[in-house]
């Protein structure tokens, strides 16, 4: 019996091996490096020394780390949990009752942002929010004075850009979930005199809540890791006003060559992702139980 069971695991062995080599190993390496003074140049590049928790101590006494952590939370909550999630749900709901042609048109427009490679989407967003960009040209046409979005409101710009780019995913998840909501339940609620919003809050949302939890988990983890979009649009600036944890980790490790400190920031980011992941997994389990 046990032999049969282990034989059944055989097909997944290659993928487990690949995961070990390409995912677990770098994570462990990065965790190890965060306790050393490893760097890109200088003596520490040749012979990194064990420095214990120095990097972590420095992180919590440094002003830029708490600021970056706070910006990361703002960015994730505003662009993923609120932006992508709610906008995706609204679009999916509207699509269920709109005409076929309209829903196809909207669907294509939303998915287009998702299909673009991240670097292309980032350049598009940069061109849109730039001082001489599309947005200012449109508002200028209406007579409004130009605003330097990437400079004056960098966080708003990257939140909007990430919402634009990621909404398609939530929309697709919710469209699939809404298609599974049995019609007879909604119809009987309608017979009982439930209004539109009552049907949404008391019937539809409870029925798709496991999709909501799954969606939230996936987009939270994706948004935590967003780097290219921010790097291209603002490079974390001006003066760290849009430096989230991935940008901070990159700057420390590769711009300043302090790999030890950069990997320490990255390790905290991994822990943060694990905490979020654990919360959502817990939520999912409770619902099933």
């Amino acid at each position, binding site marked *: 019996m046990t032999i049969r069971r282990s034989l059944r695991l055989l097909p997944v062995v290659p993928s487990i091996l690949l995961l070990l080599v390409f995912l677990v190993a770098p994570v462990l390496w990065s965790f190890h490096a965060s306790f050393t003074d490893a760097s890109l140049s200088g003596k520490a590049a040749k012979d990194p020394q064990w420095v214990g928790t120095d990097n972590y101590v420095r992180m919590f006494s440094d002003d830029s780390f708490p600021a970056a952590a706070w910006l990361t939370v703002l960015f994730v909550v505003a662009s993923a949990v609120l932006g992508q999630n709610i906008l995706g749900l609204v679009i999916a709901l509207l699509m269920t009752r709109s005409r076929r042609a309209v829903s196809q048109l909207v669907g294509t427009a939303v998915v287009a942002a998702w299909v673009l490679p991240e670097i292309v989407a980032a350049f598009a967003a940069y061109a849109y929010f730039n001082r001489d960009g599309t947005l200012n040209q449109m508002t200028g046409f209406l007579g409004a004075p130009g605003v330097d979005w990437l400079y004056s409101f960098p966080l708003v710009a990257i939140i909007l850009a990430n919402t634009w780019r990621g909404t398609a995913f939530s929309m697709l998840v919710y469209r699939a979930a809404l298609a599974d909501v049995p019609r007879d339940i909604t119809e009987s609620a309608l017979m009982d005199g439930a209004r539109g919003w009552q049907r949404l809050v008391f019937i539809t949302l409870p029925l798709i809540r496991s999709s909501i939890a799954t969606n939230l988990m996936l987009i939270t983890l994706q948004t935590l890791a967003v780097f290219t979009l921010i790097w291209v649009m603002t*490079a974390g*600036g001006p003066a760290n006003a849009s430096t989230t944890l991935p940008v901070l980790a990159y700057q420390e490790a590769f711009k300043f060559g302090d790999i030890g400190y950069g990997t320490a920031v990255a390790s905290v980011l991994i822990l943060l992702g694990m905490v979020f992941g654990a919360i959502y997994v817990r939520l999912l389990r409770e619902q099933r139980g």
Partner: protein
Amino acid sequence: MRRPVKLAGLTSAGVKTLARKLTALVSVAVVVAAASSCSSTPEGAESKTLKIVYQKTDAFTALDAVMQDAKKEFEAANSAVTVELQPIQANDDDYGTKLALAQRSAETAPDVFYEDSFKVRSDVDAGYLLKLDGYLEKWDDWSVFNEAAKAAGRADDGGIYAVPLGTDTRAIWYNKAVFRNAGISLPWQPKSWEDILTAARAIKASDPTVIPFNMYAGKGTGEGTVMQGFYELLYGTDSTLYDEDEKKWVVGSQGFTDSLAFLKTLYDEKLAVSPAEALDPNVWKKVFGEWFPQGKLGATVEGSYTPSFWQKGGAYEWSGYEQDMAVATFPTRNGQDPGGVSMSGGWTLAVGAKSKNPDLAFKFLATALNKKNALSYDINNSQIAVRTDVASEADYLAANPFVKDVSDLVAVTHYRPATADYPRISTAVQVATEAVITGKQSPEDAAAEYDATVRKLVGEDKVLEK
């Protein structure tokens, strides 16, 4: 293995054996090809490869041209060696990062590479660079290199690890037409910071759409912020960034605060670009590509390599630059001795410590830096020659009208402290300038924060209160 196949006088039986032999040959070849593609170290004298890593951008192709020539020259002289050119398309900062990452493993480490002189010492500490003393002794050309320039490749142990390609200085580049329109008498040579402000205000008053006097600031322009901006100010006060004798970083100096205050005046009075434009990493492209040629910019502090952008074949060809532009020395604060300030850097070629063919690698380096290649590089990239035989060439002296002006600045030039912690200190300076021009901090607060950052970075025992 490549036996000559005789085709003459074949019989039908001969054809069969030939076919069999060919099949065998092909299968052997396949196996060999497969085996050699797995191993990254091809063996035997026939298959030596040299990997050359350098920077190439849309605005910087002069080195690529030299490398292409050197490859042809070298391969013609050494038929058994393949030179593999691996240009990296990136700005200076990212190039440095990519190079350092490649050097961490012997598999990816280049044999010969383009190295910024201020990184030589820390990269020697990291064990990336090969000591060249033994090779240089036997290289005749080494004696024609300018003595001062040789120091660019010297490490703390006194050995030479890199050979300079050229050097540069920094000066004020100004548009004569803009100055003339503002009623400023030409040639213009400010004697103090105040003279700069006076001229800039006059330009502003004559035409508010023109940017009178730009100086880079903020993290966006990176090393450009300090090399073409802040250091010209700081080294013209009685202060300095680093005390070379004591080997300590200077903190708490009035000169630092005053330099920040000067930037604040420039940006607050809108004599420079807007802070938003200053923080754009690509602002320099507008300086060279749009504002100067269109007469929208009065002056800026830039490097001696400036003509390389405008001359024929440059990234922003502008035939009028020889007539319209002029060079002035950046003044000291109140005109105190020596009257002017300049900053110098420069790039070198070095041999990787992990190179499997160091002898060939040095030979390639020597080819790339021979008189012919050095001359074409210095002319195309508007570099100040470090080979004395190139410096006296008529072609070099006539490359552009400013060669003499910028070469003379060597007399008042300064070099960055080439220590391993320098890149972080430089960033701290950039952060201070950014905080001041965006109005986030006063010059005093920004200077105090810089001092605190430096103390944290290098430790109490490596700072000097001045």
